């Protein structure tokens, strides 16, 4: 199935999650520290990073930042509810999603699948490449360039942009985005959306304070354009 790198300091959690995921057919490499995890990455080449935020030494947020400097590897944070501050920082650092511990393996796997799933609603009859202002979106090659310069978008950012731009000027509530982009429940944490939008704007907008592409509609949600 997929190759999952698990960085988790607590042995029982590490072992339990590893065991559960392996049973479901995933190839799991477990590391006890951020340093060990980062060291294992080039050799293991994971499809996805499952990252505990509370780590001894180098913490999860730092690991997250380092990974994002190099790659757009999907990252799911493992967190305990209540460590809300960590969640926000983790999301700002580039994590795509998060899971609250303790969680059943089926929940963890569902999140993994959701993050790894490609958007498949682009298809029928649309041109493969769309141009919006300076933005060029390649729905097939899954690349985005701005003024000809390719942008490095994390999976959640890319998915959000593709979803919004598929229906320009249509308003999506954050609940709708949670359901469609993150495959969360309607009632999940809307900060996921807000953090992702903020990161996306940082990459595609000229002025983050006055966004052109991803616009906010107060009280309702977000829309793509109008330019």
């Amino acid at each position, binding site marked *: 199935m997929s190759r999952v790198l698990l960085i988790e300091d*607590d*042995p*029982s*959690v*590490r*072992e*339990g*999650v590893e*065991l*559960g995921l392996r*049973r479901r057919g995933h190839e799991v490499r477990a590391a006890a520290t951020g340093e060990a995890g980062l060291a294992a990455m080039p050799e293991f080449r994971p499809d996805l990073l499952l990252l505990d935020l509370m780590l001894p030494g180098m913490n999860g947020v730092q690991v997250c930042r380092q990974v994002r400097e190099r790659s757009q590897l999907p990252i799911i944070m493992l967190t*305990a*509810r*209540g460590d*809300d501050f960590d969640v926000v920082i983790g999301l700002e650092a580039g994590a795509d999603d998060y899971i609250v*511990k*303790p*969680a*059943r*393996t*089926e929940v*963890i796997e569902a999140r993994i699948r959701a993050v790894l799933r490609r958007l498949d609603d682009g298809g029928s009859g649309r041109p493969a490449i769309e141009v919006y202002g300076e933005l060029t979106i390649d729905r097939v090659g899954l690349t985005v360039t701005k003024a000809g310069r390719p942008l490095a978008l994390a999976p959640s950012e890319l998915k959000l942009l593709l979803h919004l731009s598929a229906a320009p000027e249509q308003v999506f*509530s*954050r*609940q709708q985005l949670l359901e469609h982009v993150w495959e969360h*429940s*309607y*009632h*999940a*944490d*809307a*900060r996921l959306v*807000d953090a992702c*939008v903020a990161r996306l704007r940082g990459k595609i907008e000229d002025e983050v304070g006055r966004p052109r592409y991803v616009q*906010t*509609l*107060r*009280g*309702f*949600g*977000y829309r793509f354009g109008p330019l």
Partner: protein
Amino acid sequence: MSTGDTGSTGSPASPVPRRSPRIRAFGLRTRLLLAFLLVAAVSAGTTAALTYREARTAVLQTAQDTAVSSFREQVQQRGFGLPVREDGGGLEEVLRDIARKGKPHPWVVFAEYGSVRASSGENPVSTVITPELRRAARADPHGSFERVVKDGVPYLTIAMPTVFKTGPDNLLPSGLVLYAVMPMTDEQVNVDALLMAARDGALPGLAVALIPGLIAARSVLRPVRELRQAAGSMGSGRLDTRIPVRGSDELADLAHTFNESAAQLERSVRELREAEARARRFASDVSHELRTPLAGMLAVTEVLDEDADGLDADTARAVRLVSAETGKLAVLVEDLMEISRFDAGAAELNTDEVDVGEAIRKSLDNRHWTDDRVRTDLPTGIRARLDPRRFDLVIANLVGNALRHGSAPVAICLRTETRSADTDVLITEVTDSGPGIRPDSLPHIFDRFYKADAARTRSAGSGLGLAITLENVKLHGGTIHAGNLPEGGAVFTVEIPLRVEGAGG
């Protein structure tokens, strides 16, 4: 933070009706002033009255003594032949002479002897002299006087029986009695002046007494007012309230006692709060510590469940039991942590503007409550700023509770209501078709781990569901109320103030 709450929460206790502090018919100030005035009036009045009486007595005494002694003196200088002749004896001349020399003012002098009646005035017989005076003068040869008020004019009437010498040392009543009648108009004027003086002295005295009365009332009332303010301040939770202690009177003692009590209270409350905080921290710590091992266990319950089929029966049952209880334990720990966050005031409200009807529908969908068991009346288009996750928990807890403890069908009804000028309220009602909640359970229904049914040792939920629901509703600034329908069935009513306008992102 109140935990052992009644069915209705969030609504502030109806304020104690405050009486207007100023105008009170028989307030302390009025009573003090009245008492002061009364004392002043009594003392001023008594003093004035006593002084007046003494002075009046003195005035009258002087006049009377003067009159009586000078009358006797005048009479003694005269000679009368016996029998006294009415005519030609010069009797009237003598009487007029005596009358002229009357002191302190002229008299009218009357003489009575046998049937002889004569006077210095026009009428030979006085209308003022009383029979009692005559009788006294006749019965006993002594000078005597009597004050008589006739037609509003006070008179001094003096009777002077006369005696003459029958020998060097022997006196014999002559049968002649002389009377002097003196109008006491001057004395009347004097006495009236005295009365005026007493009254004019007493009334300004009373007015003057009003000033120290006011000052005294003020000095007594100021500490009382301070006490009231301090007590009110304490009542509203400012336990560090103290009163400045002035002087060493009873009120200072009271202030001192108040301060000591306040300090004691503050200390007790602080200790209580610290103990409570410790207890809560302990619960929080325990949950935290439980969570890590649970995270590992929960991740592998699936493994247990899947492989249980291949084990022998007893082991399989044991394994399934462990798996199931691990799940429940996880829920319990999660709920405990949630409660701990509420207790610590660390619960955050992440609001978003949502379509409430849709939110409720999604909650039901997520839990697969989409069949006949749950009936909904959810108008579309009601938008509110809510924390979707917490609102989802409220709905899920109430519906789950209704399905578990009441019976299907469970009805969810959503509506808005305008309460006052500009507060609209979002009302969500969850009604079940069961027997309802026992009245003695109603006040405790939102308590933690409260078991409405004593026979059930452990509910299917964590036992914290309704407590968390209550906290979540309170976090939204709303209230939740549990009750029973007249036709049976429990009804939970959640009221959350609507704030439609707000930030969207």
